[in-house]
C-alpha cells in the first residue's frame, strides 16, 4: 500500500507541531508532575481547533478529516510524551465523533460546540469493576420513566472525572447502561450522553471518586456511582438496546487515535535516544552509536514503529472513507482488523522502545531528571488495556480471520 499525506494534511501537521512547540513542550513535565492540564492550554487548543476535528461544522466541529485527527494525536504526543494532553485531545475528538454519528440533533447541538471550544469534556464511560473487556457484562442499569431515564450503577477507571467537574461548562461521557434486562449479553445495552455537570451545574445523583495513576499525570482518572441519576431521552445515543454496536464503532475510532499517541511518544523517545547515542562516549572515547549491537536494536525498534505507523495511518484512512466519504463498499466491521492491528502494535512498539532507550541511557535513564520514564508509564497504559486490552485486539483479528463460528466451540 502506497501512502502519502495530502497538502492540507501536511500543512495541518506543521501547524500542530508549531502549536505544540510553543505551548506544550515547555510545560509537559510540569503538567505530568502537577497532575493537571492548565485550563488556559485547553482553551488555546480549542481556539486552535484541536477538539471535535472530525465533527461536522453544523454542530460546531471543525469539519476536518479523521486523518487530521490522527496526525494531531501523534504530534501532540511527541511534544507531551507522557501522553496526557494527547489523550485528553483524542478523547475529545473520538467520542464527540461517535456522538455526531448517532446522537440526536438536539444533544449534538448542545454538547458538541462546547467540547469544540474546550469548555466541556466528552469521553467514554464503559468500564465497570468486573473488568473493562467484558462490556456485555456491565451492571449499570437505566429504566425509562416518561421522557427520562433513571440510571444507577458504578463505573471505574474513567478518564476525565476531575475535568468534568472543573471545566466551566462541565461535560461527561458516552455512557453505557443495560436497559432491557440485566442478563449477560450485548443486546440489552443502550448508549447515552451522560452529563453529570452541564452548563456549569453539577447534577444530583453523581458521586465521583478520583484515583491516583502512576503515569499520564495530566489527565485525571476516577470512577463514579450513579444513584437515580436522571438522563433526558434526548441524550440517548441511537436506538434503544443497540448501544453495544455504537460503542464498538466508537472504540474503533478511539483505538486509532490511541495508537497515534503511542507513535508520537515513542518517536520522541527514539529521537532523544539518537542524540544520546551520538554524543555519549565511553571505552576510550567511542560513541555509543558506533556499536553494532546498538545499530541492530535501533533499526529493529524503528522498523516496529514504522510498521505500527502504517497500520495506524491505513486505519485512519479507512475511517475517512467509511464515515466522511461514505464509501458504500465499506461497513463499520471492515475497520475491525485494521484498527486492531494498529492498537495491538503501536503501544507494544512504544513500550519496547522506552524499555530499550532507558537501558541505553543507563543509570541516568533511571533518574527522574531524564524524563524518559514519563513516556514509558504513559504509553504502558495502552498495553495494559485502556481503549481495549491487547488480547481483545488479538481476539478480534483471529475471529475475523478464522470466522466466528470456528472459534466459539
Amino acid at each position, binding site marked *: 500500500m502506497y501512502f502519502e499525506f495530502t*497538502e*492540507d494534511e*501536511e*500543512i*495541518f501537521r*506543521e*501547524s500542530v507541531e*508549531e*502549536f505544540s512547540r*510553543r505551548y506544550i513542550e515547555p510545560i509537559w513535565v510540569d503538567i505530568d508532575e502537577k497532575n493537571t492540564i492548565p485550563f488556559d492550554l485547553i482553551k488555546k487548543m480549542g*481556539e*486552535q*481547533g*484541536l477538539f471535535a*476535528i472530525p465533527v461536522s461544522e453544523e454542530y460546531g466541529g*471543525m*469539519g*476536518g478529516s479523521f486523518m*487530521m485527527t490522527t496526525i494531531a494525536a501523534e504530534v501532540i504526543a511527541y511534544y507531551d510524551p507522557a501522553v496526557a494532553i494527547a489523550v485528553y485531545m483524542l478523547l475529545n475528538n473520538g467520542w464527540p465523533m461517535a456522538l455526531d454519528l448517532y446522537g440526536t440533533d438536539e444533544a449534538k447541538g448542545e454538547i458538541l460546540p462546547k467540547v469544540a471550544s474546550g469548555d466541556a469534556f466528552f469521553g467514554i464511560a464503559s468500564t465497570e469493576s468486573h473488568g473493562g473487556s467484558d462490556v456485555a457484562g456491565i451492571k449499570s442499569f437505566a429504566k425509562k420513566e416518561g421522557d427520562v431515564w433513571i440510571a444507577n450503577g458504578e463505573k471505574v477507571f474513567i478518564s476525565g472525572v476531575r475535568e468534568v467537574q472543573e471545566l466551566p461548562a462541565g461535560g461527561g461521557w458516552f455512557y453505557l447502561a443495560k436497559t432491557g434486562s440485566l442478563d449477560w449479553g450485548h443486546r440489552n445495552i443502550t448508549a447515552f450522553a451522560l452529563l453529570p455537570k452541564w452548563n456549569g451545574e453539577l447534577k444530583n445523583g453523581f458521586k465521583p471518586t478520583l484515583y491516583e495513576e502512576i503515569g499520564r499525570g495530566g489527565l485525571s482518572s476516577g470512577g463514579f456511582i450513579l444513584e437515580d441519576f436522571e438522563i433526558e431521552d434526548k441524550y440517548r445515543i441511537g436506538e434503544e438496546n443497540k448501544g453495544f454496536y455504537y460503542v464498538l464503532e466508537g472504540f474503533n475510532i478511539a483505538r486509532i487515535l490511541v495508537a497515534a499517541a503511542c507513535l508520537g511518544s515513542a518517536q520522541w523517545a527514539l529521537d532523544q535516544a539518537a542524540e544520546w547515542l551520538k554524543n555519549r562516549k565511553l571505552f576510550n572515547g567511542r560513541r555509543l552509536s558506533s556499536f553494532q549491537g546498538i545499530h541492530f536494536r535501533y533499526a529493529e525498534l524503528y522498523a516496529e514503529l514504522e510498521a505500527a505507523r502504517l497500520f495506524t495511518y491505513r486505519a485512519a484512512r479507512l475511517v475517512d472513507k467509511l464515515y466522511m466519504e461514505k464509501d458504500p463498499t465499506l461497513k463499520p466491521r471492515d475497520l475491525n482488523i485494521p484498527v486492531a492491528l494498529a492498537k495491538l502494535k503501536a503501544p507494544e512498539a512504544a513500550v519496547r522502545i522506552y524499555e530499550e532507550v532507558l537501558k541505553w541511557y543507563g543509570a541516568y535513564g533511571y533518574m527522574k531528571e531524564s524524563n524518559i520514564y514519563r513516556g514509558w508509564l504513559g504509553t504502558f497504559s495502552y498495553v495494559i488495556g485502556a481503549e481495549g486490552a491487547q488480547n481483545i485486539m488479538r481476539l478480534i483479528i483471529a475471529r475475523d480471520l478464522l470466522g466466528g463460528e470456528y472459534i466459539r466451540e
Partner: protein
Amino acid sequence: MMKILVPIKLCYDVGQMKFDSNTGEPILDAVPRSMGEADRCALEEALKIKDSIGGEVVVVTIGEARTHSKMLRDAFAMGATGGYLVSTGDYDKIDLNTVTMIFKALVEATGPYDLIIMGAGSTDTHSSLLPPMLGAKLGIKTVVGIDKLEYADGEITAVCTYGDGSYTYKLKPPALLSVTSEANLPRIPTIKDILRAKKMKFEELSVESLVENIGKVDVLGIEKYIVPRKKLIWEVDSEDKLAEALENILSVLREGV
C-alpha cells in the same frame, strides 16, 4: 485600500540537514522545506495591517507548483488573500540579480502595491541582499532589518537594531520593508483556516513572461562549516592565580575561540 506584496521563499530546514560523511556535502533531497522564518514574520506583519485597516495581502514565490504549492497554501491559511507562482524548474539556480528583476517586473505587472514586506534574509542562504536590491530597483523608500514594525494613521514606524544601536524610522507608503525573525510570533493557521485555503487558487506566471534574460549561478559545492576548536588549559595551583586565570579565559572568549 492597502495592497501589500509579500515575497516568500521555500527554504531548507538547516536544523535537519545531514551531510555526506565522505564529501561533507549536504544531502538536500532528504531535508524538509518550508516558508522561511523571516518571510513568515513578514507575512504576519502584512496580515496585522490587513486585520486593522483591511486590504489585500498577496504572496509571491519563484518555483514549481509541485514543490511550492504547499507553501502558498500555508500562506493562504495564515490569511493571504491571493498569490502568484512565478514558475520555473531552475529556481535554485537563478542569480540574485534576476530574482530582483523578476520581482520588479511582477510588481509592475500586478501592482501598484502600497507596501512590499519581506523577510530580511532567508533561513538557508541568508544573504539579506534581495530587499535592498529590490527597493533600489523599484526606487522606493526602503528600510531593512526591522525588529519592530507598527502601522498607524498612514505612517509606518520601524525599529531596527544595527551594530551600533537601535534606529527608529518613520515613513509613509509606498515603501519596501524587510523584517527579521525577531519581529513577531507569527500566527498558526487553525484547521478551519487550512480547509478554507484548500479551496483557494494561486496564479501561475512563467518566468519568461516577466524577464527576458535569466541569469543562472551554478553552485559548485557546499561544505559543512566546521568550527576550528582549540584546547587551552590553565593550571591554577593557588587562589592568587585564580583571578588571573579567569581573566585569561575571558580575554580568549572575547576574541572568540
